[in-house]
């Protein structure tokens, strides 16, 4: 088996193996290290010596043995007393149906719920999800987030200890807890995708490996929960957004706005898959925010060129989205849709309202949108000033270059 195939296999098996070991022996934090070591051993041995008959059992055996070793050396260092602080009291425990077999897909989902537990910081949730469920190494995650490996190691260690010490049992959250916990999982995947798609720091505008990983994980959750419409919506949103990636940057790494992108470079396979997915999902019930955002992305992607964009439909969808959440970025996009559907002046009026919102008043995106709308309205000098203001506010070099170039085009 080729190295790449082995790597794919290992990444698929990683959460199943960790789940099996934690389910059986507990010790989430140490088990995670043990599984990493087993994966490493496999990555070195399998390409040379061949893949064992049951790769999963091989990994579980090696990881369990390694866990025993690690626990023993911990015990030698200090008399270990893991007092788990908050066991769910037995009288509050909901026994699962006893005939339910433990399946690997359950384990992967349980792990996702654990890694995205509200007890962890968002940064911890993201890092742990990528490592424990995504099977990325700490070095890979550190590189993706542009932080030193030592920093990422500490972040992951802290997150693992939080899980270990919070006494979260290895099991599915109860029925009343499940919806908010799934929402947390989807939010973490969305953040991973966004970090890859619109990185706010660093020399490159996009960090493709994070978007690829977010899509892989979203596919996984969709496979596990095929009937959940928001999971399908999130996957469709990612596919329909990532489809534009090849056209989003020019030859010099500069940012190309959607209206000016070469649409022949969009990923047609992703668009077809995303459109099919969201079309099948929307009729299933009242759509949630991920489905509405996916629907907006689909309308954009289906337009053969920018002028053909169905702005009235996009505007209607943004109005649905505005009903759902009080999010200033949604309001900003809504203002753009209003401008495209009804003229720049109508959009600018809405921006005036947003300037009173502290959450976005100082955000470069507000000034960038204002600049665009002023330019649409023919107010060149005011537009130029807004572009320059926005360029000063963003921390992303590609964004700065783009905004400064727009400003320069308007110099008389």
């Amino acid at each position, binding site marked *: 088996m080729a190295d790449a195939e082995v790597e794919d296999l290992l990444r698929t098996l990683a959460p199943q193996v960790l789940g099996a070991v934690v*389910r059986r022996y507990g010790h989430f934090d140490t088990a995670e290290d043990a599984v990493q070591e087993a994966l490493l051993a496999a990555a070195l041995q399998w390409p040379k010596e061949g893949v064992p008959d049951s790769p999963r059992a091989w990994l579980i055996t090696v990881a369990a043995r390694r866990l025993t070793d690690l626990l023993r050396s911990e015990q030698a260092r200090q008399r270990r007393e893991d007092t788990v602080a908050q066991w769910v009291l037995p009288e509050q425990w909901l026994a699962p149906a006893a005939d339910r077999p433990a399946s690997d897909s359950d384990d992967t989902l349980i792990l996702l719920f654990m890694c995205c537990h509200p007890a962890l910081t968002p940064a911890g949730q993201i890092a742990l999800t990528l490592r424990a469920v995504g099977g990325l190494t700490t070095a890979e995650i550190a590189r993706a987030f542009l932080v030193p490996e030592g920093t990422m190691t500490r972040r992951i260690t802290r997150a693992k200890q939080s899980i270990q010490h919070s006494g979260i049992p290895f099991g599915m959250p109860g029925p009343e807890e499940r919806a908010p916990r799934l929402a947390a999982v989807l939010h973490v995947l969305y953040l991973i995708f966004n970090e890859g798609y619109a990185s706010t720091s660093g020399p490159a505008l996009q960090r493709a490996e994070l978007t690829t990983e977010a899509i892989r994980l979203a596919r996984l959750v969709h496979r596990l929960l095929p009937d959940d419409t928001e999971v399908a919506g999130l996957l469709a949103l990612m596919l329909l957004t990532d489809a534009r990636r090849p056209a989003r940057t020019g030859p010099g790494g500069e940012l190309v706005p959607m209206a000016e992108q070469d649409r022949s470079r969009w990923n047609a396979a992703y668009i077809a898959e995303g459109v099919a997915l969201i079309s099948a999902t929307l009729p299933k019930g009242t759509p949630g925010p991920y489905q509405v955002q996916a629907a907006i992305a689909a309308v954009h992607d289906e337009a053969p060129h920018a002028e053909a964009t169905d702005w009235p439909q996009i505007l209607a969808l943004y109005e649905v989205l505005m009903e759902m959440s009080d999010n200033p970025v949604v309001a900003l996009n809504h203002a753009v849709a209003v401008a495209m559907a009804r003229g720049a002046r109508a959009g600018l009026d809405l921006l005036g309202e947003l300037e009173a919102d502290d959450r976005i008043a100082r955000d470069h995106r507000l000034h960038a949108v204002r600049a665009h709308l002023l330019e649409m309205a023919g107010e060149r000098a005011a537009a130029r000033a807004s572009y320059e203001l926005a360029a000063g506010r963003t921390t992303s070099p590609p964004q700065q270059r783009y905004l400064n170039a727009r400003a320069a085009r308007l110099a008389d």
Partner: protein
Amino acid sequence: MKYLIMLMGSQRDYDMISGKAVGDAPAWTPEEIGAMHEFMTKWNGELVESGEFVDGRGLTAPVHARRVSVRDGVPVVTDGPYAETQEVLAGYTIVECESFDRATEIAAKLAHTPHPEHAQLGRDWYVDIRPIVDGFEDLEL
């Protein structure tokens, strides 16, 4: 996955729950002993009900134990090798359940075992839970 839940006890504990006065603590009354048995029976019954029960046994008092050891290459039998207050296995329950955490929850219920006010163990109460070596069948689909 199977787990062994080990209940520990000393000869002294056995004496107390068999209705003997130990030290200056009065003997347990039949009602008090009955309440404990009823609790254990219910705990066990719930496991049978949920399908998690595999096996459970109580062991006779430690004084009945024999130890076989080897001295100068010859097997030697010792009767009652334990000190009166030494904790040894008093009983066990084997459960088959979905995770170590579930086995822990089951064992933790035993912390509520009723006992008379005056009954002093002279130590912290505990039960031990040990994963049983098993093939990986239970982890494989």
